[in-house]
């Protein structure tokens, strides 16, 4: 799995990140600055639409994802089997549409080593998020 970098905006006043990029912060009438966030996050919630609007095929899987850094975004997915609120997912952009995919155990481990090597200062937070992910992954396998 390749972690994509996702274009975002940051509010210079409150540091809020939004995806996709926006001109103005929703909380402050000030111009936002360009930023990027990694395409890795957690499921906030999801649904499957059985009568989607025109132009979409049923069943339509839609998830709201919170990316590392706090920005949330809507994604499509191939399926929601095995997905729970709090599941770790990877997010990719194809033709300007975001898709989420379940991160396997191996994906999460690879991500861990790649990023641990990239920068020591992020090590602690990554370890924490990974430990959380592994814990969730294990409890799911058990259930």
């Amino acid at each position, binding site marked *: 799995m390749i972690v994509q970098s996702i274009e975002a905006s940051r509010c210079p006043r409150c540091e809020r990140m939004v995806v996709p990029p926006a001109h103005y912060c929703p909380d402050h009438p000030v111009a936002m600055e360009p930023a990027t966030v990694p395409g890795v996050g957690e499921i906030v919630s999801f649904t499957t639409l059985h009568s989607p609007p025109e132009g*979409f095929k049923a069943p339509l899987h839609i998830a709201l994802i919170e990316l590392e850094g706090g920005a949330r975004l809507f994604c499509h997915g191939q399926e929601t089997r095995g997905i729970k609120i709090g599941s770790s997912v990877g997010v990719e952009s194809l033709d300007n549409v975001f898709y989420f995919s379940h991160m396997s155990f191996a994906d999460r481990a690879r991500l861990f080593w790649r990023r641990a090597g990239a920068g020591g200062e992020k090590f602690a937070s990554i370890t924490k998020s990974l430990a959380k992910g592994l814990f969730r992954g294990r409890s799911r396998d058990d259930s």
Partner: protein
Amino acid sequence: VNNVWIAGVGMTRFGRRDESLPDLIAEAALPALRDAGIERPDALVVAAMNPEEFTGAGNYGSLINTYLGLAHVPTVRVETATSSGMAAVYAGFADIAAGLHRTVLVVGGEKMSHMPTPRVSEIIGRSIDPHERTYGTTMPALAGLITRAAMHSRGLTLREMAQVSVKNHANGARNPLAHFREPVTLEAVMQSRLVADPLRLYHCCPISDGAAAVVLTAEPAAVRIAGIGQGTDTMALRYRSELTSFRATQAAAQAAYAMAGFGPERVDLAELHDAFSPFELISLEDAGLMPAGKAGRATLDGETALDGRLPVNTSGGLKARGHPLAATGISQIVELCLQLRGIAEGRQVAARVGLAHSIGGLATNNWVTLVEARA
């Protein structure tokens, strides 16, 4: 600030109606004026969420004042998505409270059922953030996301949600103007078809036509508007950190209680915006009528039923009375007035203070209104 009274009410039967929107609006407005004993109000406020798309007509305030024979009455048209009706009540309230006029007719309605359902859903769905709509999100889709999150974080159950629909259908069966007048069983709700997992068809309000009207006056009448508050939130759901309660309702409720000078403890009955049945439970807590996490259990225990401690949606709510968009907020006030005046035949409860709660869009522009019977 002058006191503002509700001197007259009127509404049409909600449901599938063949009449035009101006005809429906007249059917609600003229009886409301008669009820108030007024032929010509000083001002007119018209609420319609999207008559441009639903009916092809424009300049809607002028269309309605001319149609009603009130062509020379100053008129504004008001819109805040699905809470447009309550926004119109607010506009009328502010007009009289400020002393600009003595009598204001507030009327709202929508006519949609002549269009195919997917088209109606698409038009209503335009109240969703444009970027989020490109993902196929509809109002039920966003409500489905919120419902799943509420089940996860607040322990909301499918049974509690289903009981809201059962109760509101039971109330609707007693309201001759309701869209649905048949009771439903818990099993029927829980087995109805999935719309936006975990939401099922019987958790969702129908597409209804209809209109409702109130006449507001500076002259004392049977019911007073004690407080009215507005609350807003981001149009984009992805900009909110909290999914399972609505900041817009909390802010509206706070403002309404502050204006009224009393709190939720004085509320005897409520009309809440149950466009999706879990929203009734979320709104009970957001409006301070139930402690956090208790609304579901209280509903199963019958506390919000017609004979409960705090009857909710005695009209049948959006689920059973129906939801003709801009008529809905006004119809909530109509129901509360009938209850406070003791003329809610077949569903009368004992009450002095009522609360109405209206959601605009996906809780982007909400209202809470408190009405009180004259002492």
